């Protein structure tokens, strides 16, 4: 006779449904290689972006869309620009530092979900995000030439997910929003594409991190993409 209550039966059924997994498609070596590959690519791209900024801008500093109290400089060669509170001001310096837009990816079939080049631009625009952990993404290929960055962010008491999605020219936008708890900004880019910045609260009723900065970040990135 079955002594289980309905919840226990469901629990047993759920566990039985997945109790004989096939041989795993990945091992520890794959995980370590994936982690090191991401780290290596990021370092290379960041080094390249910083070098380009120094070369073109004479060591000038990319702007920040954050309040002055949160800003850091990205170069030891020059002090941070003082007046970067407006979105227009934020967009100026990157345009000078990156005369050629980053634009679409080349030589790869899938949109990179954590694109190191885009991450470098985001970090330069919002230095407070440099330490933000990458948010989990899927390894499923989405065909296209866009770029994406997804970060777990904290902004004072607010925390959540910040997504920057660049859509290449001629490709459909894929930045779906949510019912509640999110803010989105966007702008057409120099390459003819579109960049959207979406911030989602960690909880349905929680505060949205960087609520007031998302449009400024989109405006700052647009000339560089």
């Amino acid at each position, binding site marked *: 006779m079955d002594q289980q209550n309905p919840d226990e039966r469901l629990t047993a059924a759920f566990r039985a449904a997945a109790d004989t997994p096939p041989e795993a498609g990945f091992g520890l070596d794959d995980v370590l290689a994936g982690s090191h590959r991401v780290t290596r690519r990021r370092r290379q791209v960041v080094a390249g972006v910083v070098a380009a900024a120094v070369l073109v801008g004479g060591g000038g500093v990319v702007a920040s869309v954050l309040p002055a109290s949160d800003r850091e400089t990205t170069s030891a060669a020059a002090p941070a620009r003082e007046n970067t509170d407006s979105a227009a001001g934020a967009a100026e310096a990157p345009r000078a530092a990156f005369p050629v837009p980053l634009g679409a990816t080349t030589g790869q079939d899938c949109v990179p979900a954590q694109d190191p080049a885009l991450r470098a631009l985001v970090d330069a625009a919002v230095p407070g995000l440099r330490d933000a952990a990458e948010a989990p993404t899927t390894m499923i290929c989405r065909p296209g030439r866009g770029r994406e960055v997804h970060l777990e962010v904290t902004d004072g008491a607010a925390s959540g997910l910040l997504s920057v999605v660049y859509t290449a020219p001629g490709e459909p936008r894929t930045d*779906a929003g949510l019912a509640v708890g999110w803010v989105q900004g966007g702008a057409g880019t120099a390459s003819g594409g579109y960049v959207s910045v979406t911030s989602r609260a960690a909880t349905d009723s929680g505060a949205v991190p960087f609520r007031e900065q998302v449009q400024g970040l989109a405006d700052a990135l647009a000339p560089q993409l």
Partner: protein
Amino acid sequence: MEADAEREFAEYFRARRDAVRRTAVLLCGDWHRADDHAQSAFVALHRNWRKIRDRDALDAWVRRTLVRAVVDESRRPWRRERATEAVAEAGAPDASDRVATRQALVGALRTVPARQRAVLVLRFLEGLDVAGTATALGCSEGTVKSQTSHGLAALRAVLGDALDDLRPAG
């Protein structure tokens, strides 16, 4: 990462890989994608290993990472277009009734909206209570209760009376 930390990570990976894969397969519906999601979660964990100071919170971190990845994926248009694709189960051969039960449940779960599916998996596979599920998903306990109710209703719509007859296999 330092040798000690690498060793710790390796031990954690070996201990938890299949459990994470099992959660993933019920969240997303097939083993191939489950492995992709699980591997992504472990890569993210390795990259953030030093930032997660509370080692007791590792399971919760991986769980949250996994659920968010699957739910976020389901919200994206290119994923939604493929959501009804039939993908063959890759599990080991088994007695026909056990296979039927598993396939029915996995198939039915695939029809449940992603957020409700996540609630059901966390509650009935992971065994989390309402409060624990709310913490894992970053929502209120009321939301967990309502999503559980809606999710079970969705399962019942597919499985009918079979939902009440589900039994542990073997």
